[in-house]
């Protein structure tokens, strides 16, 4: 039975991948050099990198810490509460944060939505992604061999050393997975930054969608080109990072240290 599933899954997967080929066709004829020099796109890239990397990094760190607290320190109440943000779709959580920070509630003058530091955008993403990372990392901790930790403790290593020797090597792969999933998701999304972002600079997804749907048909190929180039950059990043860590990961998967 499972072979049928694989066939159907592959067919379904084909759809977004052929869509990328279509992007290639549409992007033909874009003057890439003028794109690179266009300040609007450059500013957009900068702010996208900033928002994406900060929210991804924070989510990974906090999510991992939470998973560790549950697994190592036995704080199981966390896993119940951390489910809550999972129930909220991104578009709804953007609206909830908008209600909180757009001035409806007094006392939140410190940070407000729609400002150039994009703090509320980052906050929304961190709130949404920490539980996701938590789930991914909880799985990894569950399969982690307790023996390594006990050994590290017996050897009286410092807590930090315990972590870096007995846990960190096993977390590389799931962290890498989560990292790229989050980066791909956050860096080209529309709904959250469209509601909580600012007019300039816009995040890549918002700018591309705006260019595609407002009037000026001339800009069309440009937006496709940006989508394509961004997808390729992510893709290269994925390949590179997995290639660089391949050796270490394989050694761990075999469970042998040579």
């Amino acid at each position, binding site marked *: 039975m499972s*072979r049928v599933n694989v066939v159907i899954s592959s067919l379904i997967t084909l759809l977004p991948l052929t869509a990328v080929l279509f992007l290639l066709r549409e992007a033909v004829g874009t003057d890439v050099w003028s794109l690179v020099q266009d300040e609007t796109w450059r500013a957009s890239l900068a702010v996208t990198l900033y928002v994406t990397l900060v929210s991804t990094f924070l989510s990974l760190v906090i999510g991992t810490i939470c998973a560790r607290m549950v697994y190592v320190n036995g704080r199981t109440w966390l896993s119940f509460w951390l489910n809550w943000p999972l129930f909220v779709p991104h578009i709804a959580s953007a609206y909830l944060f908008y209600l909180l920070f757009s*001035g409806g509630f007094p006392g939140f003058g410190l940070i407000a939505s729609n400002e150039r530091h994009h703090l509320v955008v980052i906050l929304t993403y961190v709130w949404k992604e920490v539980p996701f990372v938590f789930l991914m990392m909880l799985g990894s901790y569950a399969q982690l061999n307790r023996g390594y930790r006990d050994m590290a403790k017996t050897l009286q290593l410092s807590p930090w050393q315990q972590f870096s020797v007995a846990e960190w090597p096993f977390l590389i792969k799931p962290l890498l997975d989560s990292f790229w999933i989050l980066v791909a998701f956050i860096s080209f999304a529309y709904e959250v930054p469209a509601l909580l972002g600012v007019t300039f600079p816009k995040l890549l997804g918002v700018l591309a969608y705006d260019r595609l749907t407002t009037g000026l048909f001339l800009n069309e190929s440009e937006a496709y080109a940006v989508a394509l180039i961004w997808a390729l950059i992510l893709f290269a990043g994925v390949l590179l990072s997995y290639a660089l860590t391949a050796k270490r990961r394989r050694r761990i998967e075999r469970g042998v240290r040579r």
Partner: protein
Amino acid sequence: MIRIVKRCAWLTALLMLAACGTERAELAPTFEQAAEEAAQTTVNFYLWGGDDGINRYLDEFVAPRLEAAYDIELNRVPMDTAEFVRQVSLDKRAERANGTIDLMWINGDNFRNAAEADLLREDILDAIPNAALLNETAQATDAGIPTEGLEVAWGNVQFVLHYDADKVKNPPETFDQLRRWTEENPGRFTYPEVTDFTGNAFIRHLLYAEYGDAMRDMDTIPDEFWDELAAWSPNLWKRGETYPKSLAQLDQLYASGEVWMTMGFNERRAEAEVNAGVFPDGTRALVLDHSISSTHFLAIPFNAPNPNGAVVVIEELLSPEAQLMKQSDTYWGDGTSLDVEKLDQTDREAFLALDEGVTYPDPIELAERQIADYGPDVIDLVREGWPRVAR
């Protein structure tokens, strides 16, 4: 196992075949025949859905009348104009002869784009009896472009600002004074981004204040204009670091009292909002040096699956009763596209007798300051040049 896969493949192939309609639907030669063919069908009407009054006008007033008179179901689909124009253009590229959109609400640069890409059905005017009642000036051009029978005028409005008289004690009378007013009241005024229909029109008003009709012959907008505009932004809402993405967002800021002015095409649009308690009671109209008048239109895409139904809906929307209800403050307050002189006496008197609203501007003053729009090329120039202001 393999049998299952095969069966799946068959099923998919069948589905695809069944779904591929390649016949283009044709328009009946007379209105009576069109109405006959359209009975018991659905018409997909695509239009901007950001105004509650407009939506309710169509759902609560127009749709039941169509149902009763022609046995047609009206399916109102809310979508941004540029978005559904893009959809039709993607259809065109994919050679999709039988699309999804029957009727759309369109004007200005979106009309130009659609007309240039051959997205609209031609010569629909002949099929619509009520088109004879249209105001000929309004029907002739759309923001300076000849309509050439590709679209039918639906309404006619002018651009005004609205302000809260309880907060703004001495309202500005010119665009220059408006600027000085924002210096005295920083953070209390803003306008939508220029990708928005209304925001772009606001900038065109500023252009007219600066260059007048000379702008019509200019190929670019001078840098000084943008520099001046950029120098203005620190006095706007959020110090000009961000602008509302749409008119709906500006209205939201106005309703909550965060800004004290809003704006928009349609001089009567605030009345229903005040009556519903959304806008503050002190809302009044503000006509500055000049006001662009704008006609908006109905068009049928080239691949409309139900063009006959669309024709019937247009006929109904152009009927004096529907136009009268549209102009009254019950739902929308949108000015009629009909020539009142062409109507019979009772209808004419009904239009003239429409109540004066407290938020309506002085009609004589508004008529005196009316100017024609610059047209889509300037809309594009504004879109290209404005981003440096928001920077």
